[in-house]
Each structure stands twice: as structure tokens, then as C-alpha cells.
């Protein structure tokens, strides 16, 4: 494999083809925060906390470090004022959903993010997709998936499959950056309700209307 020279935060780095900026940075001890990235899973690029600035033909550009492939002569900056500001806002936005996540709180400390800046929407999930992707790609069970889109996007278990598979697996729980609690809670909700009644709408899935705890409460 061919070698690729690039520069990260002023350091000359030798990487190999196929590596991402994240990989290359790690190899020289520069850490870039990640939330949705997982080595065993397909590239995703959802949380954008790994955003870094690169210079492409003299133009600065924001890219996701966890998926952007290294290029010859690339100039990467992982802690510019702009990058830090963006990470701070993203953390504040995510903290509105998961104010007690230890992982988010630690990052918030580093970036000076205010946990209470935005009105709370405690849905706990920050849509990193780790549970969904892990179940699909590694376990090949597809017991959990996304539903809806935009700001209504949520995760939801398929009760029939979850009832069969999840109790003995639960491997996705520790992956969840907002603590496994949420996933467990949703799962429990889905399992406790018999599948036929889980959904008022009739699709039989456990999507929002049937089982998401915050919706049941309200």
C-alpha cells in the first residue's frame, strides 16, 4: 500500500492509503472526539463531532474526520476556533436530549458547552445509530431500526424480533453514548407490551406511538 504524507495540526504524518483522518491522527497521538464512529461498523458520519478543517486547493472545508480519506498533501486542523465553536454547539444540542450522558458531559467540559443552553427534549437518543448498525451489521438481527425523518427521527425496536433476540444479547446497550439505560428502557417497553397492541397505528412496529417512553408518558 502506498504511503501518503499529510499534515495534521502542524505535524507531518505518514499514513497509508485507505486510512481516514481519524486513523492518521491517532497514529501520531492526536485525538479527535467521536460519538458515532465504531471500528467494526461501516462508515456513517452522523454525529459530526469529529468535524475538522481541511484545506483543499487552498480552500478551507469542514469534513468529518472519521470518514474523510487521507490525501497526499492534505492540511488538517483539528482544533481551530471554528471547529471548537461548532463542537460546542453540537454538544449543547445533544445535551438537550441526553443531559445526563457521561460521555457528553465529559466532552462538554472540554469544549465549554453549556448543558442548559437549549430547551430540553429528553428523548435520550442522540441518533448515533450505533445500536441500529451494530444489530444489523454484526448481529444481523435487525431488531432495532430508525423510523421517520428530520426532527421526528427516532429509534424503535421491532417487537417480534426483539422479544426473541434481545434478552440474551443486549450487546448494543454498552455502545450507547447516552448510557445504555435508554435503549434498555425502550426495549423493555416494547417487550412488555404484547406485539399486537404495541402499536395503535397498525404497522405492528414499536415506533414512537407504541412504545417510546416519553410519548407514553405524555
Amino acid at each position, binding site marked *: 500500500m502506498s504511503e501518503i504524507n499529510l499534515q495534521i495540526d502542524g505535524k507531518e504524518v505518514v499514513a497509508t492509503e485507505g486510512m481516514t483522518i481519524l486513523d492518521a491522527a491517532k497514529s501520531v497521538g492526536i485525538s479527535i472526539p467521536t460519538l458515532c464512529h465504531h471500528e467494526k461498523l461501516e462508515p456513517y458520519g452522523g454525529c459530526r*463531532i469529529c468535524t475538522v478543517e481541511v484545506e483543499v486547493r487552498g480552500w478551507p472545508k469542514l469534513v468529518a474526520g472519521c470518514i474523510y480519506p487521507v490525501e497526499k498533501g492534505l492540511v488538517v486542523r483539528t482544533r481551530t476556533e471554528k471547529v471548537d465553536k461548532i463542537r460546542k*454547539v*453540537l454538544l449543547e*444540542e445533544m445535551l438537550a436530549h441526553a443531559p445526563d450522558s457521561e460521555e457528553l458531559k465529559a466532552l462538554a467540559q472540554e469544549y465549554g458547552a453549556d448543558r442548559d443552553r437549549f430547551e430540553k427534549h429528553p428523548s435520550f437518543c442522540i441518533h448515533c445509530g450505533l445500536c441500529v448498525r451494530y444489530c444489523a451489521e454484526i448481529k444481523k438481527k435487525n431488531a432495532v431500526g430508525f423510523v421517520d425523518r428530520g426532527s421526528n427521527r427516532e429509534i424503535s425496536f421491532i417487537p417480534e424480533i426483539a422479544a426473541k433476540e434481545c434478552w440474551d444479547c443486549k450487546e448494543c446497550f454498552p455502545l450507547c453514548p447516552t448510557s445504555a439505560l435508554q435503549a434498555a428502557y425502550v426495549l423493555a417497553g416494547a417487550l412488555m407490551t404484547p406485539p399486537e397492541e404495541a402499536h395503535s397505528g397498525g404497522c405492528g412496529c414499536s415506533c414512537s406511538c407504541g412504545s417510546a417512553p416519553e410519548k407514553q408518558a405524555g
Partner: protein
Amino acid sequence: MTRLNSPEKLECARKDIVSRIDPTKPCISVCAGAGCLASGAAEVIAAFKTELDFHGLTTEVNTKGTGCPGFCERGPIVMIYPEGICYLKVKPEDVPEIVSHTIKEKKVVDRLLYEDPATGTRALRESDIPFYKNQQRNILSENIRLDSKSMDDYLAIGGYSALSKVLFQMTPEEVMGEIKKSNLRGRGGGGFPAWRKWEESRNAPDPIKYVIVNADEGDPGAFMDRALIEGNPHSILEGLIIGAYAVGAHEGFIYVRQEYPLAVENINLAIRQASERGFVGKDILGSGFDFTVKVHMGAGAFVCGESSALMTALEGRAGEPRPKYIHTAVKGVWDHPSVLNNVETWANVPQIINKGADWFTSFGTAGSTGTKIFSLVGKITNTGLVEVPMGVTLRDIITKVGGGIPGGKKFKAVQTGGPSGGCIPEAQLDLPVDFDELTKAGSMMGSGGMIVMDEDTCMVDIARYFIDFLKDESCGKCTPCREGIRQMLAVLTRITAGKGKEGDIELLEELAESMGAALCALGKSAPNPVLSTIRYFRDEYEAHIRDKKCPALSCKEMIAFHIDPAKCKACGSCFRQCPAEAIHGGKKLIHIIDQEKCTKCGTCLDVCPSRFGAVRKISGEPVPAPVPEDKRAIA
């Protein structure tokens, strides 16, 4: 129908079709585009059939349903040939008169002609109407000449001759060269040079490649792609096959939104017809080149217009964008090289091949060649589709073609580029419209939506409108877009509700910056409507926040309706029509609006006779106290 298996056979078939056309034979063309159908074109066509039958003229007069010529607001549009008379807003009741007068006696029905609102003079032909006269209709003009369901009509005007030329007289490289020379830039969004994508795909080693038509037309307020694919589906298909030949693709997709049922129907029909005659399928025109194409209906998702999301949708998945650090031209549908272009981009291709790159570059500016179709809508006198050379100024489009703002109102802004674009103010109206100039002004070309706004439009509300639109249309995969939009909407909603706070504008700007980290262009460009309105209309934001006033008198929660006691003549119109029963009436008593009950529907303002003009909309000031009971009597 036999397949045509050589260019000679094609020309024979064409000659045959043309020879059967009698140019002197009367023909009634009725626009059968979605707009005119909505205004009753189907009933008009049926009425013509009955009426001609009644007069025993069925064989002597042709009738056809054509594509949209763009003046939809004045539809149904009827053209009478050979004279080329253009009748507007035709109703079934007008049909007997048209047949007896125009068809039989060759007389013109004056009242159905276009009337110049200023001078009152009437225009006989399309070309005499200012709306059309100031356009350069290279592409759109074909629509009205064609029965949109007839391939023979397309062949009669030279259809598929560009394909034949390409297959037999040009190498793929030569085709690429011609497109490169024409500098055709994508009409669907970013204005990316078409040849670059084509070349990148062609050079990709993977032998399986795709070419795709983007007919998702998600920009709400744009409908040029609908008009093209509905009215002239073969031209899109021909362009696509030429592209496939240049790129070396043998399979194609046409992604059409299901909200356009007629477009879906017509393009499917066109593909069937083209397959029967050998323009699609194996060994096209005997050239040895194979190409098949499939129609994929979009199921209602704006984000699926974005290239990587569209490709994900083609694979049968939820249309989420993918990171494009490797271009889709190299790694697209099922990871194969895929060239995606917009409907209008493809529609230009046969013309460039037939007439040459030099002809094409004779229109437009150096950086943005050719013509562009805009959908000119909103608060404008002549709404419809407008095709002009790139580089024409916004002012010319709005005043010369569009006929200015109706109702004596004042122009405020024009929004271009849809949810990714921005609002351009009066001071910038002399901007030449091309890809680069619009971007510099903080907006973008987008697909060509042009929404004109007048003094009654609130710019903060427009920003809120687009963000609200995107809240449901973002795919929700990445944080900056999903959450950034959610928070922006919260801020804009509170500003338009009169609850804005100092620092809100800065907060919007900060959120906008964070959205630069979004995964796809939807999220990255989502702040544009907000940033451009802040840039040009900051005072409106400030009025909302500081003075709790909506200067356009539009934000419902910041306005009140009030009856001026000095002007009210107690006619009772408002009292009778107020749906909320919020008005205290009474014979010869000054009418009073009960602010508690008023739902701010605005009916009273609409119905108060203009000679009284007693109802006022107010904002940012207290509602005057109601007239005391004993002072209500009108002398």
C-alpha cells in the same frame, strides 16, 4: 410498430410522418399540462371534440393536447393553427364560439385574446404577448408544438436526429468534447459543469455505469421540470441516451416524484414508444449500442433530490445522503459510477448536439452559457415559466416578463434557489442572473424557482417558513442539520410570535455556522434563507424583537385588526361575515372588534368596502380603546 434499424430508416420514417402533415389543415392545440388540466383543460378538449363532431369537422380539424408553454396562470391555453392564434383562459362555454367563428369563419374571438393591462391592446399571437416576447424559449417552445403523448410529433420536429448523429457520426469523446465546449452547467442545483461528471464516470474503470435523470423537483414553487418531462418526455430521453453513449453506460434511471402523476405517465409512455421503434433497447438504430431505462417513482421526500440520497433511494432504501468524499460519478448507485443530471440539463443535450456548442454559447454569459427556465411565481402579475438567456437581470425578468407587482404593491424581495437559496432585495435587482452572481449575493440559482414577494410578505416569516419546511424534510441523520434546524425553528418561531430576545440574531448566526458541518448540502445550505434575510432585512428582525412589531403586518401573533371609528359607516359587511362572530354591530352604530374573540383571519379587512376602508391592521402599537357604548351612534 417496427424497430428502426438504421439512420436511413429513421429519416424515411420521419419523411413519411412529415408528408402526412398538412400545414394548412386547421389544428386546435390545447395545453394539457397539469396546470391547465387543473383549470379545466380536459373539459375544454372534450368540448372541442363534441363541437367539431356536431359540425361534421372531425376529420378536417386536428385537436391535440400539448405540453405546458409556461403561462399556466392564464390557462387553459388554446392555440389555433395555422394562424397561430392564442386564446387564454378558455372555458368549455367558449368552445362553440371558437369553432363557429375562428375555425369556420376565420374570425378572431377578441375577448379571449391577451389584453395588455396598461394599454388595453390585444395580442393575437403568442409572440405578441409581452410575457413571451421578452423570453428566449429554446427549450420550452417545443412544448406547444407537440402532442405530449405522440412520438410522431416529436419525430416530425426532428426528434432523435441528435441521437442518430451521435451514434453514427461521433465518437463518445467527440460528444464529450461538444458538451465541454458548450460549457453546459447543471440546471438542478449547484451548476456543476456536466462534462466533468461525464468524464469522471467515463474514466472510472468499472464497466457497469449508470446515467440518471433527476426529476424529483423538490423545490416547492418550481415546476419547470414538470413541464418538460410532461410536455416533451422524448427530449429528456434522447438527451439521456446521448449521455449514456458518451459515458459508456447501458442502463439508466429516471427518478420522478409521484406527486407528478402525469409526468410519470408520459415518460413511461415515451419509453414504451421509444423501445418499440428502437431508440431504446438492444442495438439502437442498428448501431450496436444498447441502453435500457427504468422509471423510479419518488415517494415524497425532498432530500431525495440530493444526489447521494437519490441513489440510496434507487437502491430501495430510505433516502439518506451518504458521505461523498468519493464522487457519485465514480461510486454511485450500488457503488458503480453514476452520472446524475437534472431534467433541464438533459433537455439541452440534443439541442447542443444538433445545433452545436457555438450556437449554445451564443446565449448567456461566459461563465453561464445557454438559457435557463425560471418559475416566476408569488406576488407577480404574470406567473409562469420563463426561459431567458443567463445573465439577464432580475429586474428585466420581474418587470418585462413578469409585468411587475400586482395590486399597486411595492416589490420587496425575490427568493431564488428554494430552501437552499436566499432572498434578494430591491437594491440588488440589477444583478445579472447566472450561477456565480446569485451565489455572490448570498442566494443561489438552485433549480430556478423565483418567488416574488411584496411589501405584505414578512421576511422573518419567510425564513421561518423555509426552516419549518426543512424540519420535516431533513433526513435527520446528522446532528448539525437535524438539531440545528430544530433550534433555528424555535428561535424564528419565537421571534414571529413577538417573543424574540436580544441575542436571537446572533444565536441564529451561531447555529448557521455549526450547520456548515452537516453531512450533505441540505443541511449545509439550510441556513441560507435565514442568513440572507438577516443580511438584507436585519431591520425587520430587529423590529420584531425590539418593538414587537411586524412591519409587513403579516405575523399573526403580532397584529390586531381595528375599526377606525371615524371611517366606519355601519354597513354591516364585516359583522355579517366575521366567522368568529367577534364584531359588535348594530344599525347606525360604529362597529367594534372584540379583540378577545378575534381570530385574526382578516375577513373584515377583505370585506370592508374600499370606499370606507375602515378596517386597519396594526402592529407594534396598542389597539385603541373601543368607542364607549354611548358614543357609537353615527349621525
